[in-house]
């Protein structure tokens, strides 16, 4: 593939994503059984595009892509750098592995509506991918809504009693979040007259002390914080992710919140800039406060849960807290840690939800129902243990590296609140996960007939792949920091 | 005459919004909500956003109200608040 073609992949990812999702739905009219294979193929194709884009960015550095050749501020620009290209690749990988792994379960649960489900599935990841790649604030809003709307619909699949209600709650909060974001963008537009991120950031440096810009800043932050489930805006999260269909939770839980967390970095470091956010308006204190509160709240509340997946939701809230707290500390190592943790967390949370889902299928959703599950399905359990250890931060798992940078950064900044909160939450997470291990481990029976439910090879393959992803992210932590995170920070003029 | 009409419509918009939220009959809510949307169109037309006004008239006021009435048809009309 020639290099010029690969540049176009940046827009193909979004437009083809939209297109393919409709074709997937259209497949229902021809033959319903074609939908799922076609969806797999589509995501496979998009993953390939994303991968070549990533390779291109690594080779030639970041570039801007103008939609239809119109340069900003008239046209919409896409901006591809190492970080968002990598994150986009992760999004597609997660979506692909998840779909392959849960093929049978999708067919079983959504057999007669598989076309629509698959269309929403592709639309969702396309929306996320657009959020990652776009360089236009309003375009981001639209794609955000695409991802959110499909997300609401997907989350409503599942437990009939609980899921639609939880999803509707999410609709309310999510809409408020998106509207706040839109409002903030409006304020920026009043002052700068532009929607292109780079343009806006250039203009902001000339008028940093305007109250309008500040209002925009605050609205955008609150909007995204609601969408990423930061404490105390997290109330929608546990309910929505707990009651949904398992394979959907393992898709949305790792991706939705993390992509929004990426937007925070994009907006703060690139649009508003470090001086504006940290020096003129002391975002650091606020973000530290929220981050520490989220870490402690998530870690402590998780201990009280009796439902496995709900417990994992609070783990997600803790992880979001890490990311925001690291941003709040504001020095290079802490932000490096935040970003690395964000990337790792996609893999970790995915692996955790996927393997936990496998356990839930074999036993039940309550933690106490896990009795003997380690003996029943040793393979799935060992991947679950792997992911949990990574979340706890046992080296050399990916979770450890993120935490290391975060701890180092907070120590350098002498921010002992963040330092203490991270250590404490690691210890609490240890207790948390070992409680589930104990349930699974200490119920030994001698009967040999005690085996897992029928699980297909592809399901095992998917779980294994998610585990491998975690291991790889751990082993490659240093190159990831060097080639993906650091260039991003360098362009944000952080050091 | 600009701002007087503007203000008048705005006040009507707000009263419609409050009424839509407060009425106990959901069908009335639907109607009031439709009225709210139409007044909003008017406001935008006054402000020179003709295209937005058109869209809102067709999509916002039209389709939304149809959705809404349909939804009420499938659920219950009365509400406690």
């Amino acid at each position, binding site marked *: 593939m020639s290099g010029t073609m690969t540049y176009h992949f940046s827009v193909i990812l979004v437009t083809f994503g939209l297109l393919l999702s409709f074709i997937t739905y259209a497949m229902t009219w021809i033959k319903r059984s074609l939908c799922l294979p076609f969806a797999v193929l589509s995501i496979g194709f998009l993953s390939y595009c994303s991968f070549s884009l990533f390779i291109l960015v690594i080779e030639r550095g970041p570039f801007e892509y103008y939609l239809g050749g119109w340069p900003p501020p008239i046209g919409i620009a896409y901006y591809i750098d190492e970080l968002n290209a990598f994150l986009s690749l992760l999004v597609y990988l997660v979506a692909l592995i998840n779909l392959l792994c849960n093929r049978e379960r999708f067919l079983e649960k959504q057999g007669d509506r598989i076309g629509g489900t698959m269309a929403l599935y592709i639309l969702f990841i396309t929306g996320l991918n657009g959020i990652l790649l776009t360089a236009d604030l309003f375009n981001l809003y639209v794609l955000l809504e695409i991802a959110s709307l499909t997300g609401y619909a997907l989350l409503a699949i599942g437990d009939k009693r609980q899921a639609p209600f939880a999803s509707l709650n999410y609709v309310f909060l999510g809409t408020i979040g998106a509207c706040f974001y839109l409002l903030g963008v409006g304020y920026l537009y009043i002052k700068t007259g532009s929607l292109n991120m780079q343009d806006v950031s250039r203009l902001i440096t000339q008028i940093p002390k305007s109250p309008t810009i500040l209002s925009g800043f605050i609205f955008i932050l609150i909007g995204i914080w609601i969408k990423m489930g930061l404490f105390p805006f997290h109330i929608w999260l546990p309910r929505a992710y707990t009651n949904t269909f398992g394979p959907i939770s393992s898709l949305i839980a790792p991706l939705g919140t993390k992509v929004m967390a990426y937007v925070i970095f994009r907006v703060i470091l690139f649009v508003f800039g470090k001086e504006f956010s940290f020096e003129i308006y002391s975002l650091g204190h606020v973000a530290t406060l929220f981050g520490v509160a989220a870490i402690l709240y998530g870690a402590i509340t998780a201990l009280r849960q009796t439902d496995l997946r709900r417990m994992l939701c609070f783990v997600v809230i803790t992880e979001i807290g890490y990311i925001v707290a690291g941003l709040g500390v504001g020095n290079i190592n802490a932000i490096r840690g935040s970003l690395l943790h964000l990337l790792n967390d996609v893999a970790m949370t995915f692996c955790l939800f996927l393997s936990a889902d496998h356990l839930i299928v074999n036993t039940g959703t309550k933690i106490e129902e896990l009795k003997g599950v380690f003996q029943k399905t040793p393979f799935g359990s060992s991947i679950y243990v792997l992911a949990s250890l990574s979340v706890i931060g046992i080296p050399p798992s990916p979770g450890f590296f993120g935490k290391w940078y975060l701890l180092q950064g907070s120590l350098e900044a002498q921010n002992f609140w963040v330092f203490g909160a991270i250590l404490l939450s690691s210890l609490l997470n240890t207790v948390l996960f070992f409680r589930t291990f104990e349930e699974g481990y200490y119920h030994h029976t001698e009967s040999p007939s005690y085996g897992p439910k029928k699980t297909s090879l592809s399901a095992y393959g998917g779980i294994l792949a998610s585990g491998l992803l975690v291991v790889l992210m751990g082993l490659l932590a240093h190159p990831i920091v060097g080639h993906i995170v650091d260039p991003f920070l360098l362009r944000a003029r952080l050091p | 005459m600009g701002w007087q009409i503007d203000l008048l419509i705005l006040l009507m918009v707000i009263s419609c919004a409050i009424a839509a939220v407060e009425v106990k009959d959901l069908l009335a809510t639907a109607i009031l909500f439709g009225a709210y949307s139409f007044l909003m169109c008017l406001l935008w037309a006054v402000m020179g956003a003709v295209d937005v006004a058109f869209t809102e008239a067709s999509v916002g006021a039209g389709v939304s109200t149809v959705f*809404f009435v349909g939804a009420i048809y499938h659920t219950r009309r009365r509400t406690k608040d």
Partner: protein
Amino acid sequence: MDSILEFIVGRYNYWLYILLMMIGLYAMISKNNLTKKIVGMNIFQTAIILFYISIGFKKGGTIPILEHTSHAVEVSHFVNPLPHVLMLTAIVVSVSTFGVALALAIMIYREHGTLEEDEILKCLEQ
């Protein structure tokens, strides 16, 4: 005093959009009926659209459509059309959200036979 009055009157559009937002939020938070909440949500969204249109509005500005001009275009005579274009998308988004929310509400009604939040919560706790 005059300046305060001017501050309030001169920007009545902004004040009213804030008022609308508050009405929307109020409905979403304090109403018990899910349909009412959805209406509140939509009011909230339209308030923001109103805000955007107000951004583009200029006193004495006219509709941004050019007719066979021979003389130079004076920008200040026209309303800024860009927010309008953006809002076209936003309206579509808000209607889709409205639709999704209503669909969810219907699903909930089918399961629980009610749309009152307190009754649903009571139902879920059992």
